[in-house]
C-alpha cells in the first residue's frame, strides 16, 4: 500500500502532476493495480534465458544528417539554429 505522498513523489520523478482533487481516487486505483501485481512475488525462474541475437552493429561510416530546417521544423521556438528550452538555474 502506498500513500498519497508517495504517489506525489513518483509524479515528481516522472515530471507529471496529479491534481490534488484527483489524488485520492488515483491512489486507490493505483494500489488496486499494485495489489494485482503481487502475484509476481511467487514467481521463480524456470531457467536462465540466453539471448539468441547478439552483436548487432553498424559500420563507422558517415551518413548524411538531416537538413537543419527539418531539425528545427517541429520545435516550439528557436534562436539562430539553436532550439530553445527552459532554463536550468
Amino acid at each position: 500500500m502506498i500513500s498519497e505522498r508517495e504517489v506525489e513523489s513518483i509524479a515528481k520523478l516522472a515530471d507529471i502532476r496529479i491534481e490534488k482533487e484527483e489524488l485520492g481516487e488515483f491512489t486507490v486505483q493505483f494500489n488496486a493495480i499494485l495489489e494485482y501485481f503481487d502475484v509476481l512475488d511467487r514467481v521463480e525462474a524456470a531457467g536462465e534465458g540466453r539471448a539468441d541475437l547478439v552483436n548487432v552493429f553498424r559500420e563507422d561510416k558517415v551518413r548524411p544528417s538531416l537538413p537543419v530546417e527539418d531539425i528545427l521544423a517541429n520545435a516550439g521556438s528557436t534562436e539562430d539554429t539553436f532550439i530553445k528550452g527552459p532554463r536550468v538555474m
Partner: protein
Amino acid sequence: MAGTYHFDAADRHNAFITRVESAAFGDGRLAGIPVAVKDNISTRGMQTTCGSRILKGYIPPYDANVVELLREAGAVIVGKTNLDEFGMGTTTENSGFGPTTNPHDPARVPGGSSGGSAAAVAAGMVPMALGTDTGGSIRCPAAFCGIVGLKPTYGRVSRYGLIAYANSLEQIGPMGRSVADVATLMEVIGRYDARDSTSYDRPYTHALSGEIRGMTIGVPAEYFGEGVDPAVAECVRNAIATLEGAGAAVEECSIPSMEYALAAYYVTCTSEASSNLARFDGVRYGPGVGTKRSWHDEFQEFRSEHFGHEVQRRIMLGTFALSAGYYGKYYAKAQVAKENVRRDFLRVLKSVDVIAGPTMPTIAFRLGEKSDPLSMYLSDVLTVPANLAGVPAISVPCGRVQGMPVGLQIIGRHFADEVVVDVAFAFEQEGSACM
C-alpha cells in the same frame, strides 16, 4: 500501373485522425490499394499524433520502414487512424481525439488500441490497414470488429518509425477483411531492416494453404477459464471443432504461467513506456513548452496538461516499478515471469503445432462500460501471453454472440507466422458453425 486515388469514403465512426483527399501511387504489389496506417507509425510530411494532444501538429521528417515498404509497393496511404493514446488501452476510448465506434454497433467500442484501423476496415473504407500489437492491440479490435488481424513474431517487422510504447513486446502487423489480404500485406512489411537492432532477417513470403490435415491444435484450459463469457467460449469451441473436421487433431493442454502473465505484461509495458515517453517535453516537437521557469516546472506543466489520464497512470506505474527499492519486486520479477511464459509456450508448442482459443473473453464492451482501470487491464488476459513469448498470433472472425463478432485466436511457434496464417485460412474456407 500508376495513378491517383481519390479517398472519399465517409468516416461515420471517427476512424481517422488525419486523412487525404487524394494521393498519387506507383507500381507494385499493392498498386492503387488504399491502406490506412495507425497514427503511432511515422509518416513523412503527414501529421503523426499517437492519438495524443502532446503530439498535435507533429509532422515527422521521415517515414517508418513499413511506410517506405508500402509506398514502394504502390499502396495509397489514405490517412492515419485513431488509437488509444500511445497504444495504451483496449477500447480506443483513451484517444485525445475522441473515441472510435464499432461499425457493428456504434454504441460499442471497436476494441483497442488499433480501433481506428479495425473500424476503417470493418466499415469498408479500406480493405487493409496497419495496426500495432503490444498486448493484443491488433487482435482485440480485429475480434471486436469481425475482421482479421495478425501480430507477427517479435522482430519480424521493423519497429523503425513506430513510436515506442513497449519496445520488447510490440510489433506492427497487418489487418484486413480476409486472411488473404492480411497475408498479402504481411508479405510487403515482413522484411529485415538494419535500422532496427531487434529485427530478424526472416522475410515473410508464403503461398496460402488451407491444408491442415495432420496438424495438432492445442486447447489450453486457461483460455476457457471462468473470466471468459460462456457464449464466447462455446462459439470458439465450435470453431475449433470445425478445424478438427478439416483434419486437425485437437489436444487439451495447459499454460500455467498464464496465472501471472498479465501482471508481468503490465509491469513490463508500463516500465518501458515510462522511459519511452520521457522525451515528450515540448522542446523539439509538439505544442511548445514554456522556457521561463526551470525545466522541471515547465516539463511537469507541459506533460500534465497534454498527456491523458491513462497515459499518466501508466507512466506512474512504470516509474514506480523501476524505482529504487521496488525494481527487484516488480521489474526484475516481471522479466523472470516473461522468460517463464516464453518457455511455457515453447514447451507446449513442441507437442502441438498451434494453440487455439478465444481472442477476447467477451464481445465488444459498451462505450464507457469499463471505467475501472484494473478491470480494463484484465480483459487483455488472453492476448498478452503471445506478446510476452514473442510468438505469432492471429485473430480470425468465427461467429457472433448477441449480434457482435467473436474472434478465434491461433498462436504458433516463433517464425511460424505462415502456419498460423494457414490455419486461419483453413478456418475461413470452412466457415463456422455459428456464423
